[in-house]
């Protein structure tokens, strides 16, 4: 194998050495249960509180507004269900979301719909930007919650969250944003961004899997999702994962410190986009500029994504696809379909998500490795055969 390039950071990231080093003492020495009265418990409680403070400081909010969870999925479930059930008592039984949300959001909304809520799913334009006019028309006095992601996990498009807040708040609805992909990649300041709730996940920013947080703004009341022993101010049961909470704090601080280095990542991303879209019949998915710094998502016509991934994997490159072929359904990515990308091109989409760890040499390697793979697969594609013979009406 010539080289190994991990370009699937939107799926998960390696835990950084600094994070591990901060976590280790919490596993080995400070193992106490933060609820215990004795010295070991008090010690753990102090560490946990300090982790919460550190996270709040990075995000520009108060520590009392941060709740630790098991990750992005739990935070998404809790925010949406907790707000919906709470607002139902005020006669608000309508939820607004978008068509391009993560499944943790979409399926929670689906479940609430089955339980009697009405759900409106807002469409997006060809770049994956939520249609604000459609949103304005959808939100009304019955709307409990508007749940729209900060940035899309597949195509990287960053959503107009401020405008979304204005629209929702004008009708008295709460706003929740799934910021799992955005935190660490975009500057988020909750002292000026008026969202009511925001979710984040550790393993997308070099902390371990199994830790996340939900920000719930002071004064916003939501129902509990997980009942238990009174942890997290009786809002989320379960003995706190102290070591991982420290890991999340350390990772978040580091991501914050490295925000100024993101232009370098963006430059590498742009090189990927510019070079790979030189391949004939390829097209960038998502907004050209208003996108996550590490996300390049490109659709290649006449070939299928999984075959591309297999060849990339053989060549030492880890990436991801919106093709249906790794799922049980025959439908490709709901995000690409919502953007109006035809099924055919959605099947041939490739997501490369890079990070601070990516080097220029990694980018060179991807740029030289991918075109022959695309060519090889096209040469055995009956659709490409039609293009070569000039019979394909779509080409």
């Amino acid at each position, binding site marked *: 194998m010539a080289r190994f390039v991990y370009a699937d950071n939107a799926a998960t990231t390696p835990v950084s050495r600094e994070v591990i080093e901060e976590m280790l003492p919490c596993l080995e020495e400070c193992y106490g249960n933060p609820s215990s009265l004795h010295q070991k418990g008090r010690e753990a409680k102090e560490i946990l509180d300090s982790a919460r403070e550190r996270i709040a400081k990075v995000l520009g909010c108060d520590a009392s507004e941060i709740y630790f969870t098991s990750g992005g999925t739990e935070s998404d479930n809790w925010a949406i269900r907790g707000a919906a059930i709470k607002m139902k008592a005020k006669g608000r039984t309508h939820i607004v979301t978008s068509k391009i949300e993560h499944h943790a959001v979409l399926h929670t909304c689906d479940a609430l719909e089955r339980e009697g809520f009405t759900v409106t799913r807002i469409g997006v334009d060809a770049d994956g930007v939520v249609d604000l006019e459609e949103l304005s028309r959808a939100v009304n006095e019955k709307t409990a919650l508007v749940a729209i992601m900060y940035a899309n996990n597949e195509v990287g498009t960053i959503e107009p969250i401020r405008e979304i807040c204005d629209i929702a708040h004008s009708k008295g609805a709460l706003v929740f944003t799934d910021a799992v992909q955005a935190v660490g990649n975009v500057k988020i300041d909750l002292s000026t961004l008026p969202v009511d709730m925001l979710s984040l996940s550790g393993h997308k920013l070099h902390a371990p899997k199994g830790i996340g947080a939900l920000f719930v703004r002071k004064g916003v009341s939501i129902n509990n999702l997980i009942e238990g022993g009174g942890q997290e101010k009786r809002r989320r049961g379960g003995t706190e994962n102290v070591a991982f909470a420290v890991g999340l704090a350390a990772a978040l601080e580091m991501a914050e410190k490295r925000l100024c280095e993101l232009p370098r990542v963006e430059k590498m991303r742009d090189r990927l986009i510019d070079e790979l879209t030189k391949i004939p019949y390829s097209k960038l998915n998502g907004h050209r500029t208003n996108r996550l710094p590490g996300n390049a998502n490109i659709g290649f016509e*006449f*070939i*299928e*994504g*999984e*075959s591309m991934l*297999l*060849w990339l994997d*053989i060549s030492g490159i880890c990436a991801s696809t919106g*093709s*249906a*072929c*790794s*799922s*049980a359904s*025959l439908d*490709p990515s709901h995000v690409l379909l919502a953007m109006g990308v035809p*099924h*055919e091109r959605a*099947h041939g989409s490739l997501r490369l998500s890079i990070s601070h760890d990516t080097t220029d040499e990694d980018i060179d390697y991807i740029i030289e490795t991918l075109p022959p793979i695309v060519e090889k697969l096209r*040469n*055995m*594609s*009956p*659709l*490409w*055969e039609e293009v070569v013979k000039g019979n394909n009406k779509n080409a």
Partner: protein
Amino acid sequence: MKYSEKVMDHFTNPRNVGEIENADGVGVVGNAKCGDIMKMYLKIDENDVITDCKFKTFGCGAAIATSSMATELVKGHTVKEALALTNSAVVEALEGLPPVKVHCSVLAEEAIKTAVADYYNKIGREIDFEIEKAHDEE
């Protein structure tokens, strides 16, 4: 999800990729919407023996591997033997497929049968077999 070594072998070194000019039977199955299309070409001699078989496939690793294996399994055999090829025989020859990929083998069986049906049509022989569809019709 993990593919067997045999699947990876046929995916990375697919046998009989290509087209046959003036083929005696051609079968195209699947659709781009579902993410897989197989096109099978058969060259058949006067004794009903498949002397050559080539394919082109748009699809995932399993779709390419099943196409490749299917061509190997029918090449040199009679049309009748080719019609007896089942998708499970293709799966077995590939040392298994992940459950979500079994439909690819159904597509391969369908492609061979569709190519034979085309041959029957061309020579005016009655089509006396049924073709199981991997995907529902649009």
